[in-house]
């Protein structure tokens, strides 16, 4: 193994040798690395690590600086990659160079550090038939050239998935071409300005210092400077002039006006004195100023792009092409561009593919990750009749989906629209800053004229550069950027956390909120029955009896049946969650497809179900039905949980018994359970100083139970929507600022009454939810993270405004008194607006503070992208 100590200090990772997740007890997937036996957590990791080490690239493990994603077993099903070899599919993304030489652009997923790039490059380059491969670290795009007579594209994609990454082809023409062009232009302008500045300075310095320079040489240097400055002003500074002209045409005093005036005045004055042969020249100041400004703008452009990346990533989720089944249920496939799909078409979505549109599953069972849309990291189980959302990623097995909504009507598109609206709507503080900036520019021009006149009377030779300095040094940019930069970054970050902002004022109000009012059903609880507890009897494990119950209820649509079929018991088996997170697809499949199948299923309505599994008869239902011959174990050490069936609505659990021919083997407690992370999330919110209230239309018992369980003191049961609204109003009259969290549709009036409203977007149509913010997932922890982020945003906006004002208050008088030369002014202005943007960018790295002690259902999966 190649070993290079000291070059890169690779951090050591504990846990699984490949992915770093904890290795579950009792698993044994060893791997040999540099003469040592290391443990991996699953077969997937073992296979990937083996491939990497066997192909001589074990150095990856010594160089990497971040952990890769856990390879999902579902990727084995990427075997259908062969489709990518068909010429008609390759048409859209493969460039044919010579007879057999092909080139394609690939998007690589799961890239987390530079070592990943190295690993992929070497691995792909080592394939026979691959001519060249280049991977761009910044964009995670790869460009591969290969000889089609020796290797097929599918083999290359397969090789990438062997080492735990995902590669899929994309059409490079369609992606961020615009940004690339813009960036390229900016670099060119910057290069010209930089070169011009350096060379003009070379000519300027001797004229300042030399004592014995002849007039001819001086004139020659002036002319040379003029020649160099022309492209800098005419090409590099062009955007400033265009911007200023646009502003003036709209009778608006924007940021570019003083800049253009400053540059223009200095340049024209210099040209005049060069031609006429007397007076000062300012070419050095002009070029340096332009260069510094452009540098500032360039950095700012990159920063802004990072800030807006969240929205763009959403748009890019939709793939370019998809597989249509034109004669479904017949299996003939055709590849079509997504743009040519129509509502009602049937499409085939393979594991690893992204859904191109909203629709309904008509065939297949799978786990679908909606992480990009909801922030929810665990995949969601989808079977026939389930609704799926465009942009989510199919992870386990193929799905046939009937397209219901396309393009602008999809949930993804409405999310993007709402985000755009929120980002274009400026909150009060932003509007204020904008108006202030316009006034500021006007005032600035007046001051400049006055100061210019005054200096003309005192010392005419200094008047011009002082005027230029004032125009340049003042920075309305910082004032104008302070709010939008912070807001754009914060809304982007919030969306990635799973809270969609739909109104501009929402962030500001959320930061000031003092009271948080919750609805119960569907907000703090799941709004449907689920298994709360499993009590296995007679030495069986909870998994075993759950599997039996799931098998018996496999065909039923009864809510209790659904609960038994779908849910793992919560709370009782925390290690179950850990494993669920570690191998999402496998465990989910285990849950959805019961290990055993039941035959001779007989349903007795209202009582229960009976069936045969492995030759034994089992009964599941009310205790009397399930075990009629057994004396009910009233006194087994408090094990007997309740008095038979009770309605879950009254706050108690409803009990279901499972029995075989002779004895009772398990109890299941069903209830509308609080969400797994509710207690932890509420504790965190309380910790942030918010007062929590619970309002519910449910009966007192249930509400009280939930409130006590979650530690909410103010709760009100049996509340009608009017009562809820009145409650919110009374809070507001006490001067409290109320944030209401509800399910969006039933609670619409209450949501509208609160200062800021948050709707649970789960299931509901995002666009119709009458709320200022929509929770895209069901992670309640998002709330406290969002409050923290909103407060931080508010802090950053204030810092930015304070800085912008303070800077200008100091800079203008200094420039007016003649203490600032134009080039210092250029640095000052660029630095001040850059500082504002960088300060705002801190929000995008915002890491929610974890509240310790209370365990949450968070996945330990490394999140990539």
């Amino acid at each position, binding site marked *: 193994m190649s070993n290079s100590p000291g070059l890169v200090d690779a951090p050591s990772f504990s846990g699984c040798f490949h992915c770093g997740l904890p290795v579950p007890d009792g698993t044994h997937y060893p791997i040999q690395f540099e003469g040592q036996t290391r443990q991996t957590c699953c077969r997937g990791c073992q296979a990937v690590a083996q491939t990497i080490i066997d192909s001589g690239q074990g150095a990856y493990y010594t160089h990497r600086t971040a952990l890769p994603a856990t390879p999902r077993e579902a990727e084995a099903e990427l075997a259908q990659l062969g489709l990518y070899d068909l010429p008609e599919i390759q048409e859209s993304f493969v460039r044919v160079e010579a007879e057999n030489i092909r080139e394609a652009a690939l998007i690589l997923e799961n890239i987390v550090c530079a070592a990943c*790039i*190295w690993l992929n490059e*070497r691995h792909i380059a080592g394939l026979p038939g691959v001519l060249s491969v280049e991977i*761009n670290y*910044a*964009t995670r795009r790869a460009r591969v050239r290969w000889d089609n007579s020796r290797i097929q594209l599918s083999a290359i994609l397969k*090789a990438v998935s062997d080492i735990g990454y995902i590669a899929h082809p994309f059409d490079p023409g369609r992606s961020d071409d615009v940004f690339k062009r813009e960036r390229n232009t900016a670099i060119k302008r910057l290069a010209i300005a930089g070169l011009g500045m350096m060379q003009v300075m070379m000519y300027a310095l001797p004229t300042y210092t030399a004592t014995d320079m002849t007039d001819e040489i001086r004139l*020659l240097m002036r002319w*040379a400077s003029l020649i*160099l400055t022309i492209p800098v002003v005419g090409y590099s500074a062009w955007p400033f002039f265009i911007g200023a002209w646009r502003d003036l045409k709209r009778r608006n005093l924007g940021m570019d006006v003083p800049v253009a005036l400053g540059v223009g005045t200095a340049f024209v004055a210099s040209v005049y004195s060069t031609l006429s042969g007397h007076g000062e020249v300012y070419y050095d100041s002009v070029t340096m100023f332009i260069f510094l400004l452009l540098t500032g703008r360039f950095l700012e452009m990159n920063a802004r792009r990072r800030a807006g990346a969240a929205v763009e990533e959403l748009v890019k989720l939709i793939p370019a092409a998809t597989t249509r089944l034109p004669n479904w249920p017949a299996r003939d496939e055709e590849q079509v561009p997504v743009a040519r799909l129509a509502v009602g078409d049937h499409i085939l979505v393979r594991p690893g593919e992204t859904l191109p549109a909203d629709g309904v599953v008509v065939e297949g069972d799978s786990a679908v990750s909606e992480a990009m849309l909801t922030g929810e990291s665990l995949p969601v189980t989808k079977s026939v009749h389930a609704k799926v959302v465009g942009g989510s990623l199919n992870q386990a097995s193929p799905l046939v989906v009937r397209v219901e909504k396309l393009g602008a009507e999809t949930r993804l598109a409405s999310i993007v629209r709402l985000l755009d609206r929120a980002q274009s709507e400026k909150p009060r503080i932003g509007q204020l800053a904008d108006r202030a900036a316009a006034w500021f520019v006007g005032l600035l021009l007046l001051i400049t004229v006055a100061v210019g006149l005054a200096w003309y009377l005192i010392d005419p030779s200094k008047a011009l550069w002082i005027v230029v300095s004032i125009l340049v040094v003042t920075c309305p940019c910082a004032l104008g950027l302070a709010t939008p930069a912070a807001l754009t970054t914060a809304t982007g970050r919030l969306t990635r956390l799973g809270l969609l902002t739909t109104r501009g004022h929402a962030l500001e109000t959320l930061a000031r909120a003092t009271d948080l009012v919750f609805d119960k059903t569907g907000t703090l609880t799941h709004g449907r029955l689920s298994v709360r507890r499993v009590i296995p009897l007679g030495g069986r494990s909870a998994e075993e009896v759950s599997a039996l119950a799931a098998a018996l209820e496999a065909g039923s649509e009864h809510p209790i049946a659904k609960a038994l079929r779908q849910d793992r018991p919560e709370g009782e088996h925390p290690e179950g969650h850990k494993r669920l997170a570690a191998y999402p697809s496998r465990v989910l499949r285990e849950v959805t497809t019961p290990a055993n199948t039941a035959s001779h299923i007989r349903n007795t309505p209202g009582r229960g179900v009976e069936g045969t599994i492995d030759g034994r008869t089992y009964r599941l239902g009310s205790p009397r039905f399930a075990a009629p011959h057994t004396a009910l174990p009233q006194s087994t050490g408090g094990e007997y949980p309740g008095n038979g069936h009770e309605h879950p609505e009254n706050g108690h659990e409803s009990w279901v018994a499972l029995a075989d021919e002779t004895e009772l083997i398990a109890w299941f407690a069903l209830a509308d359970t609080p969400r797994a992370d509710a207690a932890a999330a509420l504790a965190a919110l309380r910790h942030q100083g918010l007062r929590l209230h619970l309002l519910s239309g449910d009966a007192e018992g249930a509400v009280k139970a939930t409130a006590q369980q979650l530690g909410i003191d103010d709760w009100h049961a049996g509340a009608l929507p009017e009562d809820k609204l009145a409650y919110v109003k009374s809070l507001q009259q006490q001067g409290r600022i109320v944030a209401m969290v509800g399910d969006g549709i039933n609670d619409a009036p209450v949501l509208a009454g609160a200062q800021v409203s948050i709707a649970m977007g789960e299931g509901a149509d995002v666009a119709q939810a009458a709320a200022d913010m929509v929770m895209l997932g069901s992670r309640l922890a998002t709330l406290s993270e969002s409050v923290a982020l909103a407060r931080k945003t508010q802090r950053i906006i204030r810092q930015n405004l304070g800085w912008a004002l303070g800077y200008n208050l100091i800079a203008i008088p200094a420039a007016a008194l003649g203490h600032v030369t134009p080039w210092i002014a250029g640095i000052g202005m660029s630095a001040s607006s850059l500082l504002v943007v960088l300060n705002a960018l801190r929000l995008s790295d915002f890491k929610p503070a974890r509240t310790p002690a209370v365990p949450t259902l968070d996945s330990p999966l490394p999140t990539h992208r």
Partner: protein
Amino acid sequence: MDILILLIPLSLVLVGVIAWVMLWAAKSGQFDDLEGPGHSVIMDDDKPPKSDDTPRS
């Protein structure tokens, strides 16, 4: 000092050449990835992958 009469125009030509090189570099994508190449230098390639067999899967 007379040499300056030659040197100054010469420097102008030099700046022109450098500018042309910069524009070419921008156009041909030299600035597209400013991060990756820096990392790839550190990775040692002293064990070139065998190109005669497909890696095991």
